[in-house]
């Protein structure tokens, strides 16, 4: 008998133990939901769950009235998994006070022993009440426990990039306009008082152009110059601070300065030279009125000017490829744009191709203006063509050539498209160095948009600006000394 009771007692013990162990699962799964205010934010609300009786293979589900199933966190063996800091996870969740574990797919998982789970519920409508309910679900999808539905609230506070206030600019533009009008009137009064009555209406004629020019360009250029004294950088736009001449120091100390400066200079001088000489040559030839097919030639030769530059440059880029038309014609496989020297020559020649027609056109106009009497007289005297050109044509063209070459110089110096579309400044022959065909403006573009260093790019721009201004002043002075230009 006693044996029976002992057996019975042990049986009851085992059964109850089993009941505690397995039946705990049957009875003791529970989930309670409450709000976690500290996790509430824009489109987010905080939820805190106290859990018990989780088993591996099951999952914790959070449902909302906005999405249905909002979150499903599997219960898994978390041994060997890392806890990902909340700010790095896709969803900020904490299990038992520490950030939840994540599996190899970056998905949150919790261990079977987890007692509390705090999650920021994301993706909710801002500033609304949301009904939330948590549940424990087993592998077959059967509901094992469910919390009561609670109502939580999301914030409306949103970090929004506010558009810049344009009113200061409006006032600036207004004041530019007013002060220009005042200034021009003052100048007019000044001129009249000086007794220059004949020109008293001059400011009326020049006024509109000056106003349009200053209105549109004063602010951008002033801004550009100001930028060069700041540490403006794409990582903190609108929060740049004044750093004095540091950017200029960086530019002058930069190892690329000599290379870029030198190539810019060579590029500009060679291009202007080619533009002028070839333009002059073609203009001279086309100047002969008896030439058969003159108009056809001229129309064709003007094409590079008429075709948009970015199209013809892209065409040249295709033609200069190793399998391109140029190589097909030569029967070669040269990589014109791939080697430093040939790339430099190629970009220069393509730019010459682009610029000659304008020069030819303007010069042939100027050439027409030279009286033909002089040439006839020279012909009678047996003066050679070359000497005619040297002593008649060229001196007469000088007044045209000076401003034209100056414009050509400025345009070529700042010619961005040709190089950018042909080589993007490459090929690159040193790490962190400008490319072999980089000129100052293409390098500025890279500094600004590839490196995001606006302050530095602005400093480069100011240097280009100063170089060009001083060159122009020098050039105009120099040529004015010999003849009356302007």
């Amino acid at each position, binding site marked *: 008998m006693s044996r029976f009771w002992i057996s019975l007692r042990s049986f009851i013990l085992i059964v109850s133990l089993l009941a505690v162990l397995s039946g705990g699962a049957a009875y003791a799964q529970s989930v309670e939901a409450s709000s976690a205010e500290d996790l509430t934010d824009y489109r987010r609300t905080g939820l805190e769950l106290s859990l018990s009786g989780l088993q591996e293979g099951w999952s914790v589900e959070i449902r909302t009235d906005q999405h249905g199933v909002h979150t499903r966190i599997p219960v898994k063996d978390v041994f060997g998994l890392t806890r990902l800091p909340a700010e790095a996870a896709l969803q900020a969740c904490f299990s038992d006070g520490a950030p939840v574990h994540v599996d190899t797919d970056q998905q949150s998982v919790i261990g079977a022993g987890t007692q509390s789970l705090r999650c920021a519920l994301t993706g909710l409508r801002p500033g609304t009440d949301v009904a939330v309910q948590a549940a424990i679900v087993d592998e077959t999808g059967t509901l094992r426990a469910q919390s009561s539905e609670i109502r939580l609230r999301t914030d409306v506070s949103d970090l929004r990039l506010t558009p810049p206030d344009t009113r200061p600019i409006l006032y600036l533009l207004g004041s530019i306009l007013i002060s220009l009008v005042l200034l021009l009137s003052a100048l007019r009064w000044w001129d009249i008082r000086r007794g220059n009555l004949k020109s008293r209406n001059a400011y009326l*004629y020049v006024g509109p152009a000056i106003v349009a020019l200053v209105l549109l360009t004063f602010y951008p250029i002033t801004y550009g110059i100001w930028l060069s004294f700041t540490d403006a950088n794409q990582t903190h736009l609108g929060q740049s601070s004044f750093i004095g001449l540091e950017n200029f120091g960086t530019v002058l100390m930069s190892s690329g300065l000599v290379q870029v400066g030198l190539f810019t200079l060579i590029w500009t001088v060679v291009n202007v030279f080619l533009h002028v000489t070839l333009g002059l040559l073609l203009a001279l*030839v086309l100047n002969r009125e008896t030439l058969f097919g003159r108009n056809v030639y001229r*129309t064709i030769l003007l094409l590079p000017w008429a075709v948009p530059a970015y199209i013809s440059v892209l065409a040249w880029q295709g033609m200069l490829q190793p399998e391109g038309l140029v190589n097909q*014609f030569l029967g070669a496989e040269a990589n014109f744009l791939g080697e430093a020297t040939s790339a430099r020559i190629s970009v220069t020649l393509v730019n010459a191709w682009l610029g000659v027609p304008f020069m030819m056109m303007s010069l042939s106009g100027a050439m027409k203006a030279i009286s033909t009497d002089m040439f006839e007289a020279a012909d009678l005297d047996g003066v050679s063509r070359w000497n005619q050109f040297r002593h008649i044509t060229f001196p007469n063209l000088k007044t045209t050539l000076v401003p034209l070459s100056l414009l050509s110089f400025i345009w070529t110096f700042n010619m961005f498209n040709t190089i950018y579309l042909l080589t993007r400044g490459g090929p690159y022959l040193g790490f962190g160095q400008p490319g072999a065909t980089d000129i100052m403006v293409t390098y500025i573009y890279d500094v600004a948009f590839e490196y995001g260093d606006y302050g530095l790019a602005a400093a480069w721009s100011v240097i280009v600006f100063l170089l060009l201004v001083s060159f122009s002043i020098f050039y105009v002075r120099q040529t004015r000394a010999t003849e009356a230009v302007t």
Partner: protein
Amino acid sequence: MSLQTASHKWYVPFEILSLRSVLNAAVAMHVVLAALELIRDRIDLAGLTIALAAIFALLRWLAPQALSGSPRLQIVRLIVLLSIIIVARLTLAGDVSGYAVWARAWSWIPILMVLAALFSPYTSTWTRQPLSTDDLAEGLARNRRLYPWFQRFGSHVLLIHSCVLVLLPVIWIADVSISPGNLLGGGIGDAFSLEHYQTMLGGSSFWVWTRNSVIVAVGTTFFGLCLAVPSAYAFSRFDFFGRRSAMFAFIVVQMFPGAIILVPYFLVMKTLGLLNTSIGLIVAYSVTALPLCIWMLKGFFDAVPRELEEAAKLDGCSTAQIFLRIILPLSIPAVAVTGIFSFLTAWNEFLLALVFNTSNDQFTLPVGLASLIPTDGQRWGDFAAASLLVSIPVVILFILFQRSLIQGLSSGAVKG
């Protein structure tokens, strides 16, 4: 033995006159050819070509004197023989291609001309001393007859070479545009298909871009001229305070590199309410084109005689009347030329058109063309077709205005 007599200076036979120019050109050309041979990786041929260039230079230096039967003539003959051997070697080495034919033509023609000069009766007469008056008269007459032909021939050679260089990309684009598929490749004219033109002209986008471009370009022409013409007139006619600095200021503005000032420029446009409008672009482009327009127009106005104005002034015309009634009508061709400059500026500009417009209804052609380029690779065929279509209106414009263009430019041209 001297050819330095006055008659020999006075009269040089046509063969030798022309030979000088041809040899000059040939030397230059062979330096280029040698460079091309280097590109072709034919160092041997490059060497031969350079040797040929040197020979031609030598001939050019020896040419007039050496043909006079002295020992030098023997040297010349030897050199010519040598050059023939080299050219023959070059000719045999070259494959039959457009390039080879062109390059060898440049070698053979000077040699043939040297031979012609060597064996021409006129040369031998000329080298004979002294020249009779009859010989002189006949030779000079012959020179007058032949030399213009030679000059004309030379001009055509130069122009044809330039035209080929100019047309190459155009032909290439045209070929890509009529090749089926959107990949590059194939020889010139090996396949034909109008599918790209159908794609471009059939879609609605292209027409929208064209419409916008026309509006913007015409608007720029008009508005730009409204700004430029009066101020250019003032710069030309009035002597007011700050005239020089103002002229200079117009050009100074162009010297600041554009990349960095895009954002403030954008803000100015936004403040003025000109984003996503044609007017915004028109105003911006007019200002861009201002310096050139003013400088050009000032040159034209300078060339209009002042006497006209003084006469009108005596008749009691005001300055404004003089400007509108006398100066402006006189300079219509010049204004037309300047207008074309503005038109082209607006027609071709890309960056501002891209940044200031974020509405597809406002895209201009350059931006539209850029938006044809897909995420990966390039729609070459469609792009080429569109490119040609973009260029055609401008070319037509040029042909139409060609006369006025030249007239306009000739009536004063650009003067600082």
